[in-house]
């Protein structure tokens, strides 16, 4: 499938409509089964696909309507990880965190049905976002593997490292790899492995790289990755070792809202100089929309962000997207932000002689 220059994409999550929130609440409170709320999920899924297509995105997903959120969904299908309670992400935003109590086993390939559903309702190419092995491990309390290591070696840092590596590789081999292979067989257009935790422990970058590559071993489909709110200098040292075609990254959150192309104004994007110096040769998904504010980025601001990035990234390698999933914003606000993003891309395409 051929994409236009500067393809536009959403990262993954989108705000659920209120009626779906209510359905999910019933499910989470044990008042309804997944099959009971599935028709409601599918209604919201179709609405979201159509909304994103109407906005004009080139690559779409359904805003993750089939999932409560990116950690909760996979964990529900992994035997060996159990939910233990809510833990803060920021302010009063929490996520249900699990603990691993035995070697993880895949109960069911949890992405096939949702992929088939989205694929059958989308007219644009589809990208399926999947939570990666390192992030799954990092966001889980490591009881099982740590209990095996904590008194085995006297250095506590080494014990933690060994326990984390074993856990992450088990997830990569036994959970992610079978899922990705199955999706690959179904000729999925793109698989995006979400790894927001990737750089959070610099000393564990070798684990992240090893697990990522293990997860995609034998996978024929195009694999991309999304990383956010991270130190990209840490990532840069490993950027050529990871078997991904694209890095979709967050930048707008660190940027100013002022117009212009100076480094001081475009400070959220100055790291791209180092990408160039490092010989970065992959596709870059450029985050141009801050998902943590209702501020609607004007078309001109988005244009400046893209133009600044083009100083360092080749045009045929540049994809345009929000920083992260837009689930934190209302659907109305998110749609306005995305519409401006698409408008900005139309303008830059014209400047590059792309007429469609």
């Amino acid at each position: 499938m051929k994409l236009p220059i500067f393809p536009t994409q959403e990262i993954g999550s989108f705000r659920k409509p209120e009626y779906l929130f209510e359905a999910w609440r019933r499910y989470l409170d044990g008042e309804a089964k997944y099959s009971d709320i599935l028709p409601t999920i599918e209604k919201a899924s179709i609405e979201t696909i159509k909304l994103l297509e109407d906005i004009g995105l080139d690559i779409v997903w359904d805003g993750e309507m089939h999932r409560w959120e990116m950690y909760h969904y996979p964990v529900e299908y992994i035997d060996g990880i159990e939910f233990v309670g809510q833990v803060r992400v920021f302010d009063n935003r929490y996520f249900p965190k699990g603990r691993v109590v035995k070697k993880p086993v895949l109960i069911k390939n949890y992405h096939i049905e949702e992929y088939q559903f989205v694929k059958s309702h989308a007219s644009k190419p589809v990208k399926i976002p999947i939570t990666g092995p390192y992030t799954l491990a990092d966001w889980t309390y490591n009881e099982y593997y740590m209990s095996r290591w904590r008194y085995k070696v006297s250095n506590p840092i080494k014990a933690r490292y060994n326990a984390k590596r074993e856990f992450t590789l088990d997830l990569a081999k036994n959970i992610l790899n079978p899922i990705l292979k199955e999706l690959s067989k179904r000729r999925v257009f793109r698989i995006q492995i979400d790894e927001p935790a990737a750089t959070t422990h610099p000393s564990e970058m070798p684990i992240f790289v090893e697990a990522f590559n293990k997860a995609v071993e034998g996978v024929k489909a195009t694999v991309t990755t999304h990383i956010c709110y991270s130190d990209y200098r840490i990532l840069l040292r490993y950027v050529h070792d990871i078997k991904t075609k694209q890095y979709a990254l967050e930048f707008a959150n660190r940027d100013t809202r002022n117009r212009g192309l100076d480094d001081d104004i475009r400070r959220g994007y100055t790291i791209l100089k180092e990408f160039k110096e490092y010989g970065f040769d992959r596709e870059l998904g450029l985050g141009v929309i801050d998902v943590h504010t209702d501020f609607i980025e004007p078309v001109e601001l988005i244009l400046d962000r893209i133009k600044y990035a083009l100083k360092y990234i080749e045009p045929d390698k540049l994809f345009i997207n929000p920083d992260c999933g837009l689930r934190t914003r209302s659907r109305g606000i998110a749609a306005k932000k995305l519409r401006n993003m698409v408008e900005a891309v139309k303008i830059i395409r014209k400047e590059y002689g792309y007429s469609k």
Partner: protein
Amino acid sequence: MNVEGYIAGILPRNDGLIKIWKMYEAGRVTEDVFRDVLDKSIEDIISIQVENGFTYIHAPQIDWHDYFRIFTELDGIKAGPLTRYFENNTLYRKPIFEEFPKYREGLIADKTHIRYIPRDVKPILSLPGPYTFLRLSLFKNGVDPVKALSTLMYNALKEALSIGYSKVILHEPSIAYEDDPDKDLLVSLYSELKDFQSNIRVHTYFGDVGKKSDILNELDVEGYSVDLQYTSVESVGCSDKLVIFGVIDAQNTLIEDIEYIYNQVSGYRERCKGDIAISNNTDLDFLPFTVAIDKINLLGNLLKRLRG
């Protein structure tokens, strides 16, 4: 040899408080309803500390979003972008010093809950350490970071101690996290706070401080903590300062082996013959509420055991 025990840092919110907070934010409950649940949660968190016989009772900072947010309400400091807090899936708003900050008397009194703590116990409070505060902030318009942080923290400490806090725990994960912390900067920042030396303790975590005792011993503070999830107890040297062992792992739900910790800490006491304290390694806010409570009780049991 005396053994102290206390919890340090921001505590988790219980499920009821999280829920009512969301409802309050969405305008579905009134402020009075929200306040009732918050007050009850504060009282509960104080009670459990009193029941465990801790040496100090920590301020119930369950309504703090992060360590820096209260300071961003001051003139001159703005709450910046959401930023990852060290190696955690937790984000804080980066403080941006746009001008030299103007301290507002009453900030600590307004933002902590000392009035809820019984009068017959000794209350303590957690604040960001000036070094970590500096490292995690952005300074603009020629604001001198050392002067700004020294003045700000001096005023905050002065107020905290004047309104009744016995000790202030200054959280300094950057000291442990950085491979090579800036000793001159640290000494300079803490020398500005030496008026309060006997009332401040440095809490370090997220890294090995076994080889950083020369730095920690030089700070004008009463004591410092060592995170035993990162630092081997054998590498902790004897010190004239109070050494606080972070024995409770707030980053894992795995329940500690009390016998193993007892032996670790006892080994240090025999070797160094000084007073010690035990605590959690980092904020219990990294745990779900119910697990945090289990671990607080475990700390209480360990304290009883060590006191004999």
